[in-house]
């Protein structure tokens, strides 16, 4: 590393930069959404989705092993699971309250938008590319009506396909930053 500050900063950021780990998950979700959008898979078709899980789990395991052996393992001071838990509870409270009071908003898109925005804005917006999936997530309630009528079902799945694709690209971008960080250090 070039400076001590770099060493400290890079160690803190390292876990977040292991985005490649999540690429199979996001890519499979994007694929499933597009497959449903174009009519390959029907809504709630469990069979092909379950089959997709096998290569996804295998790919995640292989990628994790590759990252561990190539770049190493860092256990962060806080994994942020507490905030994730609070986020899930807030999401369900908002969604259930909206449904009961007759406010027709699907909070799934905005919730994923908040998740992406959090990743994009933390640590001095170092991973600001996450703001693109955040915007796509936030726009979802304005694009797709809720409850979704059958005629808008393909728009709903298409939007999710686009959202998960943006998550996939952002994760790949994280990996690019990780590789660049190490190669910068070696060359300096």
């Amino acid at each position, binding site marked *: 590393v070039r400076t001590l500050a770099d060493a400290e900063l890079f160690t803190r950021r390292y876990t977040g930069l292991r985005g490649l780990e999540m690429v199979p998950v996001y890519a499979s979700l994007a694929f499933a959404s597009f497959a449903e959008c174009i009519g390959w898979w029907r809504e709630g078709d469990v069979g092909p989705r379950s089959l997709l899980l096998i290569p996804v789990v295998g790919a995640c395991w292989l990628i994790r092993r590759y990252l561990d052996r190539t770049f*190493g393992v860092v*256990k962060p001071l806080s994994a942020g699971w507490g905030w994730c838990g609070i986020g899930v509870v807030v999401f369900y409270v908002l969604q259930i309250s909206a449904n009961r009071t007759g406010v027709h908003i699907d909070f799934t898109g905005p919730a994923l938008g908040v998740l992406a925005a959090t990743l994009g804005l933390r640590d001095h917006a170092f991973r600001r590319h996450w703001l693109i999936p955040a915007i796509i997530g936030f726009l979802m309630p304005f694009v797709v009506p809720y409850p979704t009528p059958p005629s808008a079902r393909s728009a709903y799945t298409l939007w999710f396909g686009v959202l998960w694709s943006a998550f996939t690209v952002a994760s790949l971008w994280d990996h690019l930053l990780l590789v660049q960080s190490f190669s910068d*250090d070696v060359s300096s």
Partner: protein
Amino acid sequence: MTSRHNAGARVFEDVAATDRLIHEPARLVVLTALASCESADFVFLQRLTALQAGNLSQHLAKLEQAGLITVTKGFSGKYPQTTVAITDDGKKALDNHWKKLDELRKIAKGSSWRR
């Protein structure tokens, strides 16, 4: 001239008295990195410091002997994995080291012999 000489000598003595175990660049990088996480493995530290494995091992052994870090050897599947974590003493020593360097910097800035 004498006061300038004395001030310079005092700063030099203070610098010489800094903890050399921590002040060595590679060990300072390792301790700084470990202070910003719960633990890190050998591969990560090697990538971070760009040191040879043997060289890094020596630095880690010195820090472990001084009680500044703990080194745990285990396995990840079939592959050996060495996990390193900073101890409370290590954190204190690192903090004290930075405080000392800050003080030295202040003294050097405020000294009469500085141009």
